[in-house]
């Protein structure tokens, strides 16, 4: 098993993602430079957070044209697990692998704080070891993390079970107060219809070690590793 962590110029969670996989989980993971043209040989791809290409133009927009992304999009369409975190989620929306967009936070300010998430779809490769309805504690750190989609898209995402994580309060209720950034329907993470592409704004790569206040994020990487092992078996 070998997982790729794509490094774009301006990625800054690449090291955290790699450590979560190698130190946190003990699986093999490698950096793949954005100028590479293929992800073949890898069993899954992580698009880490950061400010790819300085987030100039629009968050994630330029990364879409990076040589490696052509291969990532093709592999995703062929069913390879692809996990976008923060800026990685933004990139997935820009490429069209995921629907909707991430826009400026409601407060218009960058926000770094812990949030509580509720899992609503454990049928993805990244969530299969967790139960629906379980709560996760993770930090967010973004300026443009408000999920937006038009009404029809939103309905389709909801009805298609593509909403994977929602911002909730400690009781598991998706309230206005528990929505840190103004995301529609408190959406924190969505997947594609097939479930093999997941994008989330909060950081499992910063919540895989109890010393950091939470190790809830490790479950996502564990699920991914478990999926890959069961595929290989």
């Amino acid at each position: 098993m070998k997982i790729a962590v794509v490094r774009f110029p301006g990625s800054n969670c690449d090291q955290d993602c790699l450590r979560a996989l190698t130190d946190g989980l003990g699986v093999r993971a490698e950096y793949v430079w954005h100028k590479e043209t293929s992800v073949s040989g890898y069993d899954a791809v992580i698009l880490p957070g950061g400010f790819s290409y300085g987030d100039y133009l629009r968050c994630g927009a330029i990364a879409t044209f990076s040589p490696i992304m052509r291969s990532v999009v093709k592999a995703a369409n062929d069913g390879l697990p692809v996990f976008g975190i923060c800026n990685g989620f933004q990139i997935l929306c820009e490429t069209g692998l995921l629907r909707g967009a991430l826009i400026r936070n409601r407060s218009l300010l960058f926000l770094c704080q812990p949030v509580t998430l509720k899992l609503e779809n454990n049928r993805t490769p990244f969530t299969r070891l967790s139960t629906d309805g379980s709560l996760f504690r993770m930090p967010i750190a973004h300026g443009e993390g408000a999920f937006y989609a038009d009404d029809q898209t939103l309905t389709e995402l909801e009805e298609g079970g593509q909403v994977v994580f929602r911002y909730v309060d400690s009781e598991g209720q998706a309230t206005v107060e528990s929505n840190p950034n103004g995301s529609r329907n408190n959406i924190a993470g969505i997947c594609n219809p097939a479930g093999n592409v997941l994008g989330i704004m909060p950081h499992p790569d910063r919540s895989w070690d109890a010393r950091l206040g939470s190790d809830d994020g490790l479950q996502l990487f564990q699920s991914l590793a478990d999926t890959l092992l069961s595929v290989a078996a």
Partner: protein
Amino acid sequence: MTPIVTPELVRQHGLSEEEFERIKTTLGREPNFTELGVFSVMWSEHCSYKNTRRELRKFPTTGPRVLVKAGEENAGVIDIGDGWAVAFKMESHNHPSAVEPFQGAATGVGGIIRDIFTMGARPVFLMNSLRFGPIEGDSETARKNRKLVRGVVAGIAHYGNCIGVPTIGGEVYFDESYNGNPLVNVLCLGILKRAEIARGAASGIGNAVFYVGSETGRDGLAGAAFASRDLTEESKADRPAVQVGDPFRGKLLLEACLELLTSGAVAGIQDMGAAGLTCSTCETASRGGTGVQIDLALVPKRETAMTPYEILLSESQERMLIIVRSGQEERVKEIFEKWDLPYSKIGVVTDDGQMRVLNDGSVEVEIPAKQLADEAPVYQRDVAVPRASDPILATKLPLHDPSDSLLQLLRHPSIASKNWIFRQYDHTVRAGTVVPPGSDAAVFYVREANKFLAATTDCNHLYCSLDPREGAKIAVAEAARNLTCAGATPLAVTDNLNFGNPYRPENFWQLREAVEGLAEACRRFETPVTGGNVSLYNESPLGTIDPTPTVGMVGIVEDERWITRQYFRDAGDAIFLIGAVGDEIGGSMYLKTIYGKKAGRPPRLDYDREFAVQKFVRELIRTGVVKSAHDCSEGGLGVALAEACISGQEKIGASIRLPASHERLDVLLFNESQSRIIISVAGDAAERLRQQPAGARFPVIELGSVGGPKLEIDTGETIFSWSLNQLHETWYSSIALALSQQDL
């Protein structure tokens, strides 16, 4: 057309007649216009410390852990064991932030990060110490201050968040003395192997000199000279002297340089910060005992028709000078092309000791590098001792309801929660922040080295304005106390000396007093000063700032289990005060907030008592019984108790019995006597503490217990009670409320 060097032009460059004479002696001729510019920036206060060098020599700079001393390189380096070391330093960007807060603060962050990776260290965290004028009210000044706060915070967030270095703590103060002249002091710490410290020397005659990073433009022209003047109404016209930061380029440069450093191709590396190309060439040559010759035609530029003067004095950001071992030049090409960054071989290391700059085939600048970089004139400025503030007799002040006073103190933006600010900083990237902003000290797990580091910045400007020597000593003591409360052992200090115009004798007296206070305290605490920064001329038409010798202190927590936070945790835990109840009210936030007085004699520091209190708490933490530890600082015992109740993730109350040992309850609650720490411990440990024989140096006072929905203080004659929600709301929302006002 190159201007002719006239006495008027010399004056405009901030050089005195004597300095000009010295330049002529050094050169053996008159300088040309470009050389005049070069001397003016190198001999500015910012680069040469000409007015403060004699004072800075008073600092203790050596110690068993010091690997790179203050002033030797871009940042000091200390040993943290197991082959690992940390490089850290604090630097100011006060003047740029005053005229252009967003870019001023952003480039301050970029600059200090470059100083750290120049040492070969990977930057792992940032902190900052910020000071602004008051932000409450409708006055024009308050509006301006709010704009400065928003701009500075956004600028720090912009750079730090993008480059991916977490901002894990610091301090923010608000006071009239900073009207028109905010302070932006940024600290960065990086991790490196002790065997891999990079040096900023141009060594190896014949080695190539490379320019790497962003192209040179006209931004930030002579910023170092700008920072060495008072701010005036006309300072806004100096906006071109403020640099523009590009954190994306900064991130690429960081990664490319660290990659190049591990390749073994680098003989020397120096960041182009203040005074840009000028400073980096003459300093590397001076350190190497060599010369450097560069050709301006080879410098990457982003604007056309730039004059030699402009190229040499530009402070464009995200640039480095690298001396490459001969035969290794291909490595530079490979790595910088990989990171899509400009690079250019612009010159060579020579053996003649000259900084020589070629332009269009002819020599434009030829100055002995050592004399330029290290032999700026050094001055002893005059001092004048101001009249001391009269002591304050608390009994003469009308008593204000202590119940309301606590709320007013918690509402004061200097004491109130800084969440509105630190939520805008990414403080969790790099997955190492164990104690985030909002406790006495931040604690960060440096994963690559398997070390827990604690850091804090401290300076009480009220004490310093009333007694700079005592205030500076207390800044060191408080920093050490904060680290102790976090479970850490203090290691070393970086300082940022912020003062007014040194040509005013009373200002220079403040500086000298503060330096001597810092030096003495650092010696006593065995925390050597490993570097820092001096920022003078912090005055505006509204006045001079309070003397602000900010202390950044780094410590190590040797065992993860010792990491301690400031807030109460479990109901039923017993609360103890380690140290005396105290009675010193001079220079306190209480006097300032409730009576509008910045007066009296600030508290005194008793070293022996301070050491004893800190040692006691550190050792107690190591026994594993301490649930929380919080130092008493601004607002005294009252504020410290309230903070211990409301600053954690979950609020929790406390019942306190505080025998009225003083005739005034406000003095009891809000005095700021030093050397006091509030701890909470579980029941069985409490029993042992009760039986602790009272130490000769300090008492151990049982204050009460943790739990309940309110903070209750029973003084024997009065019972004060505040609901947790009231305390929390007052404290938590104050800054956000002030800043949410629309200021068009």
